[in-house]
C-alpha cells in the first residue's frame, strides 16, 4: 500500500465507504436477479478504491459527475442507502423521485451532479462546473468520472482543450477497467490514454486503482493544486469491474476469461488488500472490521426492505419537473 498521512478515522472511513459500495452493489444485483428492480443496472464492484480514494479527498462542496456505472461515486460522495435504493426501484423517496433511476442518480446535496447514460455525456457538465468555480471564485474542484470506453468520445478532446486553455479546476478521472462494454479496451484505444491528456499540456498520472491510499494520496495533491488554479489534471486509474457490462451480462467468456476475473478478485481486490493492511498496521482488529461489515450489511438490508415497501410516485407527477416554475407541464 502507498504511504499515507491520515489518522485512524480517515482509514476507517475509507474502508467503510468501500464496503458500503460493495454491499450496495451486492444488494442491487440481487434485486435485479430476483426481478424486483425495473430495468437494469451497471455494477461498480471491484472499482471501489477509485471512487472512495478520490471522493475522500474532496469537500462536500466539491462537485463530481458520474457515469452509467455510478452507484460507487454516489455512495462515495456521501449518499444514503435508503434514498439510493428508493431511486433504483423508482420510488417517490428516491434521490430523483424515481424519475432518474440507476443511470441518472444525482445527489445535489453532496455535490453529485448526476450519473449520465450517455457514455462521456458528463464531460462537458464537469468542465462547466469547473468554469463556474473559476468565474464565481468559489474554490470548488470538480472531478469528472468516466470509463476507458468514454475516451473514444470526441467531446472529451473539446472540453480538455478548453479546460487547459482556461486552467479550470477539473480533474478528469478515467476508470480504466480494461473493457469498453463488451470489447477489450486495447481493441478500441490506439496509443496511450495518458498521452491524450498530455497532448493538451495537461499533467497526467497513472495510478493503481485497486490501492485506495495511492488513489487518495494522488487526488489530495491534485485537488489542492487545482484549487490554486493549477488545473486541469488527468488521472488514469487502473481497475477492474467484477461483473459484466451490466447485471444481465452473465455469459461473457467470449470477451473475458473466468481465470482473469478470478485473478483480479483473489489477488487485487481493493477491500481485501486494504483490510489486510489496516490489521497489519494495527488500525483495526479483525473483530472490529467484522463488526463494521455486519453493521453495513444490516443497514443495506433495512434500506432495501424500506425501498421495496416504499410508495411509487403518484401518477400526477408524470408532468411535473419538466420546466422549472411550471407545476404541471401538460395542465
Amino acid at each position, binding site marked *: 500500500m502507498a504511504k499515507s498521512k491520515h489518522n485512524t478515522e480517515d482509514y476507517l472511513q475509507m474502508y467503510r465507504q468501500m464496503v458500503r459500495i460493495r454491499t450496495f452493489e451486492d444488494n442491487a444485483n440481487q434485486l435485479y436477479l430476483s426481478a424486483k428492480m425495473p430495468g437494469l443496472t451497471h455494477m461498480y464492484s471491484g472499482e471501489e478504491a477509485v471512487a472512495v480514494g478520490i471522493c475522500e479527498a474532496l469537500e462536500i462542496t466539491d*462537485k463530481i459527475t458520474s457515469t452509467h456505472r455510478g452507484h460507487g461515486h454516489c455512495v462515495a460522495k456521501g449518499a444514503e442507502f435508503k434514498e439510493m435504493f428508493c431511486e433504483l426501484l423508482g420510488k417517490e423517496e428516491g434521490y430523483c423521485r424515481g424519475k432518474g433511476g440507476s443511470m441518472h442518480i*444525482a445527489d445535489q446535496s453532496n455535490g453529485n451532479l448526476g450519473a449520465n447514460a*450517455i457514455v462521456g455525456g458528463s464531460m*462537458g457538465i464537469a*468542465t*462547466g462546473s469547473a468554469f463556474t468555480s473559476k*468565474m464565481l471564485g468559489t474554490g470548488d474542484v470538480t472531478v469528472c468520472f468516466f470509463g476507458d470506453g468514454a475516451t473514444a468520445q470526441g467531446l472529451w478532446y473539446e472540453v480538455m482543450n478548453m479546460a487547459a486553455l482556461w486552467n479550470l479546476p477539473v480533474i478528469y478521472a478515467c476508470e480504466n477497467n480494461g473493457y469498453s462494454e463488451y470489447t477489450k479496451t486495447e481493441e478500441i484505444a490506439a496509443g496511450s490514454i495518458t498521452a491524450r491528456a498530455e497532448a493538451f499540456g495537461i499533467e497526467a498520472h497513472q495510478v493503481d486503482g485497486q490501492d485506495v491510499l495511492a488513489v487518495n494520496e494522488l487526488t489530495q495533491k491534485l485537488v489542492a493544486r487545482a484549487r490554486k488554479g493549477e488545473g486541469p489534471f488527468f488521472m488514469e486509474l487502473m481497475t477492474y469491474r467484477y461483473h459484466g457490462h451490466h447485471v444481465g451480462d452473465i455469459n461473457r467468456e467470449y470477451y473475458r476469461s473466468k481465470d482473469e476475473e478470478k485473478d483480479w478478485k483473489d489477488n487485487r481486490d481493493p477491500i481485501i488488500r486494504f483490510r489486510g493492511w489496516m490489521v497489519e498496521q494495527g488500525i483495526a482488529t479483525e473483530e472490529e472490521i467484522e463488526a463494521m461489515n455486519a453493521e453495513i450489511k444490516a443497514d443495506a438490508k433495512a434500506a432495501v426492505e424500506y425501498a421495496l415497501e416504499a410508495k411509487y410516485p403518484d401518477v400526477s407527477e408524470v408532468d411535473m419537473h419538466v420546466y*422549472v416554475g411550471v407545476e404541471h407541464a401538460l395542465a
Partner: protein
Amino acid sequence: MRQITLSQAVNEALAEEMRRDETVFIIGEDVAEAGTPFKVLAGLVEEFGTSRVVDTPIAEPGFMGIAVGAAMTGTRPVVDLMFGDFIYLIMDQLCNQAAKTHYMSGGKLKVPLVLRTNLGATRRSAAQHSQSLHALVAHIPGLKVAMPSSAYEAKGLMKTAIRDDNPVVIFEDKLMYNDKAPVPEEEYLIPFGEANIKREGTDITLIGTSSMVQVCEKAAEILAGEGISAEVIDPRTIVPLDEATLLKSARKTSRVIVVDEGHQSYGVTGEIASRINEKAFYHLDAPVLRMGAMDVPVPFSPALEDITVPTPEGVAENARRLMSGEMIHAA
C-alpha cells in the same frame, strides 16, 4: 419612439442583463473582439471583459456542454451558436443533457441557459448555413423556444429568456439583423407564451413565426386591397404556445393559414394546424393550411432558393383560394 436594429436590440438586452446579474456570461465562437460574424455582440467585451464574453475554440458540443455544467452550478450562460445549422452538432448536450436534467433529477437540478442562434434562408448561404431548425428543438420536452419577429420582440424575449430558469433556445432571423423597429428606451420584458395580434381582421387568420410575421403582414396588406380582412398573429414563443389566442382567432375568422420557415413536413405549421383542427374544428369553414419551407435542402442558386420559402404573394394567393372555398394543398 426611437428605432433600433434587431442586432442592437439583442446587444442591449444582453448588456442590460449582464449589468443586472453578474452570473450572466456569453460563450461561443468569435463572440469577444469579433462580436460574432453578424457583429451582434460588438462592444460587449469592452464592457464586460473576456471572463464574461468568452471566446471558444470551434467546438460546439464542447462549449455547449460547458454551458450546461456552468448553468447547473450557479451561472446563467448565453451560448452563441453561430449558425442554427450547427444545432445538429450539439444535440446531445442540448436535448439529452440540458432539456432533461431538471426532470431526471426530480426537480433538484436546473439548467438556466439561453442558446442564441439563427434561422432563415435567402442569404445565398446554401444548405448548411440556411436552415430553420426550431421544430427539432420544439419537439423536445424541457426546452423553451422563442422566435422574435422584430427588434422589439428580440429584446423583450431575450431578457425574459435570460431570467428563465429553464434552457431556452432563441432563433433570430439572420436576415433581420439590420431591420429597424421601434424599441422603448425604458426596460421591458415580453412574457413567454403570449401571442401578439399584429393586425386585427375578420375573414382569415394568418399565423406567422419570426420573419414570416412580416410575410403575413404584407400578405394581409395585399388582401386588404381586395376586400379580404386578414388577422395576423405572432405566437412569439412556440414553446410555450399561446394556444388560446390562436384558437380564439380561428373560431372568429373560420379560416387559418400557418406560415413558418421550417420545412413543412413534421414541422411547426403542422403542429399548430393540428391543434386548431382538434380544438376549433366546428368553427372552421376551410381546412387549416400549412405553408412551410419546401421539403428540399436549401439550394444555393438564387433562382432556386427564392422559391423554397413562403412569400407574401404566395400567402395571399392561398388566402384567396381558401376564401373562395377551393380545396387546395400548399407547397
